[in-house]
């Protein structure tokens, strides 16, 4: 087990290297001169030169890369051009908003996705199944940022139950925090819920066709016990993998939702930085989000081997 965990963590090294390389090279995709992009059209030659020197853009690429990796290994992602502070501080300050939003949506999506999936599977081929699956398909076809606006229109503007946007820190008012996070979390959860419901349904149906379920039924166990203790437990195993994949979708999805609901998370930080050509923030934000995603997936893989020992023996 320890060996598996170790090898899984080590396998993240090349991935993280590529991630960092891509983020570094992102600056190279900027068409034209980065310095004049940053300084704007009215900049004088002296200003441009100052920017180039400050960012070491006048150095050859391998020197730049060397410095970038040197700083990265020391946990330094550079300074923001506009916020006048380090990228790491700026991202860390906003990380709790993004992570709590992603986590809340994940929990909502898993709870309701599993419930709907079980509901559909236990009513296989009747109208409940069909309605649930049609809803799930519609859910994953909706653009989430648009669905967010629809929820704002009905529940914030129309009913006035929730604020139309903005963020109340948990430390300031727990209730206010919950009110400001409810609609964003529901928006993200709704689109992901369909994916989980479909997966749980098909996985549950597959389990219900297995021999051990027939045995359980044959020895006269009550239906509920067979369904929930036998079938569901095994049907949920693939959902763990899905949760890993969905973390990536949610971390990306929060970017858009933060903009829609004006939440001060990493996503809005990155979008603001993109608009202001504050490239170190863009790079740092991307790198840290991808890093979190990589580690969540390692955790998921390890969890998988604990839950399903067959996998451990296979590898």
């Amino acid at each position, binding site marked *: 087990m320890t060996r598996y965990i170790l090898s899984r963590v080590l396998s993240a090294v090349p991935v993280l290297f590529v991630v960092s390389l*891509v983020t570094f090279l992102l600056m190279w*995709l900027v*068409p034209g001169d980065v310095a004049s992009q940053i300084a704007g059209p009215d900049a004088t030659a002296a200003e441009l030169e100052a920017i180039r020197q400050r960012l070491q853009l006048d150095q050859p690429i391998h020197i730049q890369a060397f410095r970038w990796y040197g700083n990265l290994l020391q946990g330094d992602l550079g300074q923001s051009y506009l916020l006048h502070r380090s990228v790491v501080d700026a991202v860390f300050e906003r990380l709790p908003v993004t992570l709590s939003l992603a986590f809340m949506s994940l929990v909502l999506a898993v709870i309701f996705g599993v419930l709907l999936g079980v509901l559909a599977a236990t009513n296989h081929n009747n109208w409940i199944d069909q309605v649930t699956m049609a809803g799930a398909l519609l859910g994953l076809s909706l653009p989430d940022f648009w669905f967010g606006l629809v929820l704002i229109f009905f529940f914030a503007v129309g009913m006035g139950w929730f604020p139309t946007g903005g963020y109340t820190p948990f430390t300031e008012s727990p209730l206010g925090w919950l009110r400001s996070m409810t609609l964003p979390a529901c928006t993200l959860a709704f689109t992901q819920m369909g994916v989980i419901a479909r997966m749980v349904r098909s996985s549950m149906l597959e389990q219900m066709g297995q021999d051990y379920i027939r045995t359980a039924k044959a020895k006269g166990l009550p239906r509920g016990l067979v369904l929930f203790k036998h079938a569901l437990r095994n049907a949920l195993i693939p959902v763990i993998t899905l949760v890993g994949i969905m973390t990536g979708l949610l971390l990306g999805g929060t970017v858009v939702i933060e903009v829609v609901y004006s939440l001060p998370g990493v996503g809005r930080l990155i979008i603001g930085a993109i608009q202001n050509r504050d490239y170190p923030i863009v790079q740092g934000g991307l790198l840290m989000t991808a890093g979190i995603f990589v580690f969540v997936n390692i955790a998921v893989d390890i969890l998988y081997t604990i839950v399903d020992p067959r996998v451990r023996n296979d590898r």
Partner: protein
Amino acid sequence: MTAEAGVPDISATRAWVARLKLGLGTAARHRSIQVGGVLFGFIVLLAIFADLIAPFDPNKNNFRALLSAPDAVNIFGTDAFGRDILSRVIHGTRLSLLVGLLVVVATGILGVIVGTFTGYVRWLDGPVMRVMDGLMAFPGILLAIALAAVLGPSVSNAALALTITFTPRTARIVRGSVLVLREMPYVEAAKACGASHARIVLKHILPNALPPLIVQLTFVFSVSILAEAVLSFMGVGPPPPTPSLGNIIAEGRSYIQEAPWVALMPGIAIAMTVLGLNIIGDGLRDTLDPRLRNL
């Protein structure tokens, strides 16, 4: 590959056509493909004949009808410049489909090239797939936004950003099929008969790797339409005044209280297009690739 790759191989083409016919023939009889096909086909027709169908010029201002509610003249209402929302939505749908199509074609080509080489040429597998893994480690939409932003807002850059984002997963699927197929007895038989690598790949491996690829590309199509809308909504997609479904929603966001139709209508158009594609995708998965039925 050998020089033979440049010569059209008739029997290889025949294998491809046969495989496609077999798959698509069954697919056409599948009910969800028919339902999704009608929905998606209708939207495609609207997009192709946008100039004929759209009642107004999508960029024509009408200052006597600013933010007017849906009525008999402007069926979907008008925006803050008095532009007809229906016409903008129809033209925006055309743009979405165009971007989606570009991404599907580019992702398909790149995915096949990368997937085949990594699956077939052993020493390439490790290094190239590590790069693909690295690209997949970014949350997809975030990478697409960052790429589109640094490349600059335009239709082709949006398509390029989405292609870079979706190619790794597609390549992985092709590679997976190639890895299985190259060990098949009939491939070994072809090798024993002295078939060249190009012939083995083109005639024996790729036609059989096609079904899961088609399923994946339907998925790429629907996801890129959603992602293009996000890019436009964020202001890094095709720039205004070109109507795109995402930037109409972005404009409508400011008027969500007094004129909700501006933001609502394009979203419904996106949802219908993606729904149509997803229904087709489900049907294709059932008929072409039974192994994936549980995903």
